[in-house]
């Protein structure tokens, strides 16, 4: 089962046959086959854990397949390491950048090359490539000062300098504003027109419909379908991806009550190196209301969560829960006042990876669920609570005693969402509720969040997934370089307006000279 319907007129560049890769306890890829033609933009589509990353790591020489064959331009292809793949014309832009913040753009590019040319020559070449492909980038700037979109350009230009025949891009748009996505797509289309094939990994279906010539859909490590994205609806592709039909969450907006959470003129220095300080953040959330906070990663989301959870204290009046000042209280005091928070990073921040689910249930719920008496922990009661979460949130686990790290990202996220949402708190703050969670579980989590709002909780959802925010939020604001825009009602917002709130394309639209 190889090949795609479309693209047969192109010359075949990469062909993969029967590739299998197993890890202990899980088969990441089973008998996967597909082919990519020269100049083709080919999507690799699937939920988290479907095996996309393992597959491209094999193509890029990071992982060796257990069995199966790969051919590049008709010749057997089995790269032992990424350097070999790069020599043969395969380049990759990773989802998580590997850049040194304290070095300049040119120095970072040089670090990724086998034999870097002299700095001045390299700077000239970076300028030439960046102009040719409409990706403006000053080689002398420090990477630490660049936005996420600009950092991605460093990675792309690093690849383009090698003149690749196949460019692999892993979830490239997760860090971009809508305008930046448009410009990236123009660059990719230009590359494709020049004959460079692009293997594009994503789970954003509209993007794939706009950009890709063909798509291979993976589910649980197997190819379940191949299609031409333009000929399918996003919903059809989603159902192929998930293997089930999907229902969007229901909204039963209740009457809006008085203010549950109020933040006024909150300015705080970031405790994180190269972090973003909060600058005069103000907003209020009424009981029963969901405020969605969008923004590209690294614009102060983590700092805002810390400032709300109590890990980063401020003046008492800056943060109010039910009109009570709580700014100077730590996490315990704020939970007592009725505010619960869920940080983005599950392994190490929201949960202790090596502790059991029971212990992790106690981690934040000990106080509000009354799981202790005079400082002594009631483990039996805590265990019951953990089991309740597992049941209500459909957490797939052998039992409550396994270590948190043994759960998949999506399952652990369900558990942690349950832990916070089942504390009956009046104010709920969540950073990235469904990051890395599969579509079905994400829908379930969003539904639970909406249920809490319907019961009168004031909810803040910080997310980089615009579709998610548009689905759950009543009002909408954007965090940009530590400043929060004035919240606006979500109903009636257009993508263009949202993009402008997000800071546009960081001045990129002017620099593009493509016909």
């Amino acid at each position, binding site marked *: 089962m190889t090949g795609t319907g479309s693209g047969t007129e192109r010359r075949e560049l990469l062909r993969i046959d029967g590739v*299998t890769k197993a890890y202990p306890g899980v088969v990441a890829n089973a008998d996967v086959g597909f082919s990519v033609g020269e100049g083709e933009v080919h999507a690799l589509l699937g939920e988290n854990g479907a095996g996309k990353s393992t597959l491209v790591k094999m193509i890029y020489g990071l992982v060796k397949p257990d069995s199966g064959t790969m051919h590049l331009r008709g010749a057997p292809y089995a790269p032992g390491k990424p350097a070999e793949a790069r020599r043969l014309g395969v380049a990759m832009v990773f989802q998580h950048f590997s850049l040194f913040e304290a070095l300049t753009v040119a120095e970072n590019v040089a670090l990724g090359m086998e034999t870097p040319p002299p700095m001045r020559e390299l700077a000239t070449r970076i300028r030439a490539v960046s102009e040719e492909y409409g990706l403006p980038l000053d080689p002398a700037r420090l990477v630490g000062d660049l936005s996420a979109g600009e950092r991605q350009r460093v990675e792309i230009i690093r690849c383009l300098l090698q003149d690749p025949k196949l460019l692999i891009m892993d979830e490239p748009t997760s860090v971009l504003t809508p305008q930046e996505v448009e410009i990236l797509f123009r660059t990719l289309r230009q590359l494709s027109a020049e004959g460079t094939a692009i293997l594009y990994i994503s789970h954003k279906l509209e993007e794939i419909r706009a950009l890709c010539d063909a798509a291979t859909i993976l589910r649980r490590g197997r190819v379940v379908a191949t299609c031409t994205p333009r000929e399918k609806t996003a919903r059809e592709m989603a159902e192929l991806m998930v293997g089930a039909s999907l229902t969007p969450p229901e909204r039963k907006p209740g009457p809006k009550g008085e203010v549950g959470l109020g933040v006024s003129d909150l300015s705080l220095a970031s405790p994180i190196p190269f972090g973003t300080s909060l600058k005069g953040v103000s907003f209020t959330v009424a009981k029963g209301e969901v405020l969605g906070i969008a923004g590209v990663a690294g614009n102060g989301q983590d700092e805002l969560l810390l400032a709300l959870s109590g*890990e980063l204290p401020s003046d008492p009046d800056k943060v109010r829960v039910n009109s009570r000042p709580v700014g100077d209280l730590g996490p315990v005091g704020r939970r007592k006042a009725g505010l619960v928070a869920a*940080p983005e*990073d599950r392994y190490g*921040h929201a949960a202790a990876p090596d502790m059991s689910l029971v212990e992790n249930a106690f*981690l934040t719920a000990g106080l509000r669920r009354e799981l202790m008496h005079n400082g*002594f922990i009631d*483990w039996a009661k805590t265990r019951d609570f953990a089991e309740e979460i597992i049941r209500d949130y459909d957490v797939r686990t052998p039992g409550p005693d396994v270590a948190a790290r043994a759960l998949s990202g999506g399952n652990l996220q369900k558990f942690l969402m349950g832990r916070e949402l089942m504390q009956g708190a009046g104010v709920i703050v969540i950073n990235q509720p469904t990051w890395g969670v599969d579509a079905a579980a994400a829908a379930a989590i969003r539904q639970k969040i909406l249920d809490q709002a319907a019961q009168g909780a004031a909810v803040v959802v910080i997310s980089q997934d615009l579709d998610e925010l548009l689905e759950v939020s009543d009002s909408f604001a954007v965090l940009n370089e530590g400043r929060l825009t004035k919240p606006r009602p979500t109903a009636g917002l257009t993508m263009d307006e949202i993009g402008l709130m997000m800071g546009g394309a960081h001045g990129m639209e002017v620099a593009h000279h493509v016909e």
Partner: protein
Amino acid sequence: MIRLEKRPTPSRFWLYATPIAAVLLTMVAGGLLFAAMGKNPFAVIKTIFWDPVFGEFAFYLRGQLLIKAGPLILIAIGLALGFRAGIWNIGAEGQYIIGAIVGAGVGLAFYPTENRLIFPAMILAGAFGGWLWGMIPAILKTYFNTSEILVSLMLVYVAETILAKAATGFLRNPDGAGFPGSRNFRNFEAASNPELIAGSGLHWGGVAALGVAVLAYILLTRHLLGFQIKLAGQAPRAARFHGVSPVRLVLLCMGISGALAGMAGLFEVTGPAGQITIDFNTGYGFTAIIVAFLGRLNPLGIVLAGLLMALTYVGGEMASTNLGLPAAAIQVFQGMLLFFLLAVDVLTNYRFRLGAGAPAKQGAK
């Protein structure tokens, strides 16, 4: 090729099997060492591990076991609490010495008054001295972000200097004809710490060690503070999210371990040592680090580890007097125990895999 592969959950079996495996490996490697030195390895191992309990002089040596194990256990439990939280107090030896000096000082201040309350007051003073010495690295860490490892370690040498001053100066026995050393507590009943049951080696220090072990076990398994200690050690950011103040935890853990080490020093100086001398301390504070890890940082495990370590002390002394082994060889032997423990410990979280991802099984047909 041999590869290490992370286990999805830590292995319960290896958690308990590693100390045993480490002891066996130490016996093998130590045996090779002794053989290379021209000794009969079987005789040496038997002298160290068998004779103190079942040999000819066991009636005397068994008592020595408890005498040596008591302070080791008491100190190691305090250290284990800190180690669990990621707070590395390496200077228990110094806290032990200062505890002994302060406690002994309080007792000697009352000489020759005989009162039942003197000894309890000395215990409190000993704990206070150790606590004070532990607070120095703790406060420097919380306010100036210094390394508690270096500061606590260096304070050991400061403590030793103070000890020398105490033995030859401010605590010297006025009736001692100018010899260094304080009054002997055996001659000062209200302040002495005698053997409670003749020949058993059990004094108040041993009783305290067992009591503290039980309390620490309850603290770690049932109490909020124990949970916070474990959480801070395993996931510091999750601990802050939970609401633990890192400053409070550093002060608490350094304080507890200092106080327990100080108490151990007081029991030692009033009991087995008998008086403050320039070198009454015998490195229990350092050996306790090995005991803490050998006992898996678990209070009940530490009781067993303390007894085992005492065995190598007593047996090692026998081996050096009877078989002519240098003392350094015994110390190497004890060091090996920690070395092998840390090495074998990998198996708790990882497992070995042979071969490089053997592809034969899935592909062939």
